[in-house]
């Protein structure tokens, strides 16, 4: 058995670096070399669960119907700030089929006395059907004492009690840097609150069997749900089993347990019947998280020839009522360019709106829009090609740590992207469209992100008596295809066809696995799975060597056979143990720490081509070219899909999405998919995807890092820059609506 030890590790998660101790076993192995002949890894493979997803057989949390199941409906505050004086459930309880109504008095663990946003939970009604619970929810009479509130971000920034400084960073002397500058761009950018709108609503179903709670939840982080729910019902970790087979999107909003998980767990235990608590579309838009709206000020100073001398970035992020953390909006400014003098500050701003949560590259999406717009404004002032300006300030070393990168091929992303986009056709001042009122333009923007992953992550592989394998890991598949990537990695090292590798994932009775977030699932778990497969192979070869009367080091596995030397003796795997009736070869693997001496980061560049109707201000995005560098791509088909999906979400963020609040009532005016505009098929442009082929062999034993978030990071700035190029309208506020384009044109 491999020995266990505790190691120090540094992981970058959602734009922040965490130094933690981790338990690992055995020793790591080097990444596959560039010329390794791999049969699964690096090749497009169909989703291992593709047939389930297209046939309607995939069972999501919302599809679960258990015998005796009750439905919980949350009664929510219509006030943005109020004290709950009295809850009267008499009329609700009188409705046939209502089984329970709980509020702060009867379930203090679930509710607060004061509510701080429209949609905050005040009571829960439990009924035999969803409809009964919903009807009864309207009958709960609640008396509130209304309190003062602020929902507008700018208004909140002006109120010092609502603002907290959370992060600051500096290197060099920004003041001196600005004195040395020939040209300074000083601009203010604002971005909207983006709502996740996962197609599958947030929700949980809990069942208590008198001893143990089973909770089905649509989640990106089963183990965090287990921890949160165990605490809520005052139970031990082993008392709670969380299951997530299929989930319908998360994008950061399903990290950690929700209030719905607590409601389902607490009431299932209390009432002794399964409880289903699933949000409706309005609740999705009010209470399940969002990307912070921001106000940002960026100052960039440069010499006449375009060398940056100073960069200052101050960001205010509206976190709603979330008082704990704030996304790293200034991260891109701190780490993207080689500039000696940098100063940044990040403020958290509290408003009486639903709490924010992680949303696909939180902070970096907002911050990159501001930074890369400002870089473009600078290029414009300097009369430099925007791409040339970026190349001129290219950071060969990580500007924050001074370390080398494990891999940085941003220059190739720029060159290849420029080629694919036809950047040489770009003209200062844009080009003419088919009509005099149509202007065309091109813009570029850069992406930097972490996603290197890290420990802890563990996997076991069981090899069965017929030569099939089962990979057991604490993994939930958010929908990105991680499951398929994991199967490919195991099949590669076990020399088995993909269809002989089955996954047993999606529940917490498995070894601990990472959350599906931070672009790090495959990079965290994949290396552990590879080591588990190596462990199985080692044991197989040991036994086979004995049977074949050769040394274990002299044989290798190919196509389900143990083979001695070149063209030597062959032994089918299922013959290795043929004298045994039943057996399991158990392989174990754990994720080892990241290298200390290099920084793991992914890079990319997006190029946008747009057409602007200068009569109406309407922007049509014609084409996005996305070139990314993440090292080894485990499955090119899924990687391409990941980029197309990220770009599409970014397109919404750039031109159509934004929560609208009524300042006087505190209500969200577009809490549905009719008024909140996510892109439809008719909005998507031509999306061209490419990857830099180089491997990131220092990163981990796969040679690649994560791709989940990078594709959403640079798009909005590329589009804004293309709009400015097309018609001279510099829109510094997202989304870039026709009204904002017209306003910018008038300036």
């Amino acid at each position, binding site marked *: 058995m491999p020995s266990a030890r505790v190691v120090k590790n540094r992981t970058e998660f959602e734009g922040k670096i965490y130094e933690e101790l981790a338990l690992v076993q055995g020793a790591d192995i080097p990444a596959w070399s560039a010329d390794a002949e791999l049969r699964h890894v690096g090749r497009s493979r*169909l*989703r291992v669960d*593709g*047939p*389930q*997803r*297209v*046939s*309607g*057989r*995939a*069972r*999501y949390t*919302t*599809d679960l*119907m258990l015998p005796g199941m009750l439905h919980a409906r949350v009664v929510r505050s219509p006030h943005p700030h109020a004290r709950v004086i009295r809850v009267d459930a008499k009329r609700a309880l009188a409705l*046939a*089929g209502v089984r329970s109504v709980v509020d702060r008095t009867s379930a203090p663990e679930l509710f607060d006395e004061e509510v701080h946003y429209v949609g905050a939970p005040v009571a829960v009604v439990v009924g*035999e059907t969803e*409809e*009964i619970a919903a009807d009864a929810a309207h009958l709960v009479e609640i008396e509130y004492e209304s309190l003062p509130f602020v929902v507008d971000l700018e208004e909140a920034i002006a109120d010092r009690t609502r603002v907290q400084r959370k992060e600051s960073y500096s290197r060099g002397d920004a003041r001196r840097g600005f004195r040395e500058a020939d040209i300074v761009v000083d601009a203010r950018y604002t971005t909207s609150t983006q709502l*996740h*709108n*996962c*197609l*599958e*609503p947030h929700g949980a179903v809990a069942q208590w069997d008198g001893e143990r709670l089973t909770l089905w939840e649509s989640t990106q982080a089963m183990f965090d749900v287990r921890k949160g729910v165990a605490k809520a019902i005052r139970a031990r970790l082993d008392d709670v089993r969380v299951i997530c087979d*299929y*989930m*319908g*999107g998360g*994008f950061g909003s399903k990290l950690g347990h929700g209030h719905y998980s607590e409601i389902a767990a607490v009431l299932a235990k209390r009432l002794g019947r399964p409880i289903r608590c699933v949000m*409706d*579309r309005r609740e999705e838009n009010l209470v399940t998280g969002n990307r912070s709206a921001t106000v940002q000020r960026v100052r960039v100073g440069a010499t006449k020839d375009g060398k940056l001398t100073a960069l200052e970035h101050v960001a205010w992020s509206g976190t709603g009522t979330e008082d704990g953390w704030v996304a790293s909006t200034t991260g891109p400014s701190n780490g993207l360019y080689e500039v000696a003098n940098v100063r940044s500050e990040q403020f958290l701003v509290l408003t009486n709106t639903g709490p924010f949560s992680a949303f696909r590259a939180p902070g970096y999406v907002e911050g990159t829009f501001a930074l890369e717009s400002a870089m473009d404004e600078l290029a414009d002032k300097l009369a430099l090609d925007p791409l040339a300006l970026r190349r001129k300030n290219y950071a060969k070393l990580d500007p924050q740590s001074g370390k080398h990168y494990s891999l940085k091929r941003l220059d190739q992303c720029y060159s290849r992207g420029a080629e694919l986009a036809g950047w040489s056709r770009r003209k200062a001042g844009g080009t003419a469209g088919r009509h005099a009122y149509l202007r065309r333009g091109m813009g570029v923007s850069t992406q930097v992100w972490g996603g290197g992953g890290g420990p802890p992550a563990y996997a076991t592989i069981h090899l069965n008596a017929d030569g099939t394998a089962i990979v057991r890991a604490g993994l939930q598949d*958010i*929908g*990105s*295809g991680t499951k398929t990537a994991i199967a490919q990695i195991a099949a590669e090292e076990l020399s088995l066809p993909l269809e002989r590798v089955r996954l047993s994932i999606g529940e917490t009775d498995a070894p601990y696995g990472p959350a599906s977030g931070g672009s790090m699932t495959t990079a965290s778990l994949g290396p552990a799975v590879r080591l588990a497969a190596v462990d199985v192979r080692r044991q197989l070869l040991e036994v086979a060597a004995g049977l074949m009367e050769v040394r274990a080091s002299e044989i290798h596995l190919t196509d389900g056979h143990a083979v001695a030397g070149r063209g030597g003796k062959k032994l089918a795997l299922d013959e290795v143990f043929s004298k045994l009736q039943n057996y399991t070869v158990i392989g174990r693997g754990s994720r080892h720490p990241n290298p200390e001496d290099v920084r793991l980061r992914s890079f990319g560049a997006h190029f946008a081509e747009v057409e602007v109707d200068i009569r109406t201000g309407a922007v049509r995005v014609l084409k996005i070219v996305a070139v990314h560098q993440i090292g080894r791509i485990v499955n090119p*088909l*899924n990687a*391409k*899909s*990941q980029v*197309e*999906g*990220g*770009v*599409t*979400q970014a397109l919404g963020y750039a031109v159509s999405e934004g929560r609208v609040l009524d300042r006087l009532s505190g209500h969200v005016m577009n809490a*549905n*998919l*009719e008024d909140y505009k*996510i*892109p*439809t*098929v*008719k909005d*998507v442009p031509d*999306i061209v995807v490419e990857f830099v082929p180089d491997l990131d062999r220092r990163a981990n034993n796969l040679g690649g890092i994560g791709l989940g978030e990078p594709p959403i990071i640079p798009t909005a700035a590329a589009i804004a820059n293309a709009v400015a190029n097309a018609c001279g309208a510099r829109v510094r506020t997202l989304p870039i609506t026709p009204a904002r384009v017209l306003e910018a044109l008038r300036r």
Partner: protein
Amino acid sequence: MTDRTLVALDVNGQRYEVAAPPHHTLLEVLREECGLTGTKHGCELGECGACTVLIDGAPVYSCLTLALESQGHEITTVEGLATGNELHPLQTAFAEEGAAQCGYCTPGILLAAKALLDRNPRPDRAQMAEAISGNLCRCTGYTAIYEAIDRAAAAARSK
């Protein structure tokens, strides 16, 4: 509790006789009474298209259609696309093109695409876009979906 009424539905060539409240939608009855949960619940407001099914070959939002109104018509849900274990060419194409990331919007989009291909075996991009413009997808984007419909159409023509 609400009074229930007998509803007879012809779904995927099979007759379902269930008791449901008369105001319940086709989506509710399919999922809760017929046990056909392949049809997804996304908004129940007619905005997202996840609940799309075919009625006599035409796509409808089952969340905006009463079950009672659907009696006497042929209803097709995602469960009715495959023949036994053999997937419909559209399903195969969606799996092969990676057109289903989380897969939650997929059943609805498959049915909207089937309605299109049944009346127009050679759709162009604009016609495909028109056909699925009532279906929202939040993960995959729509590029792979176009490619999958293209591939399925080509496969059907070459048969």
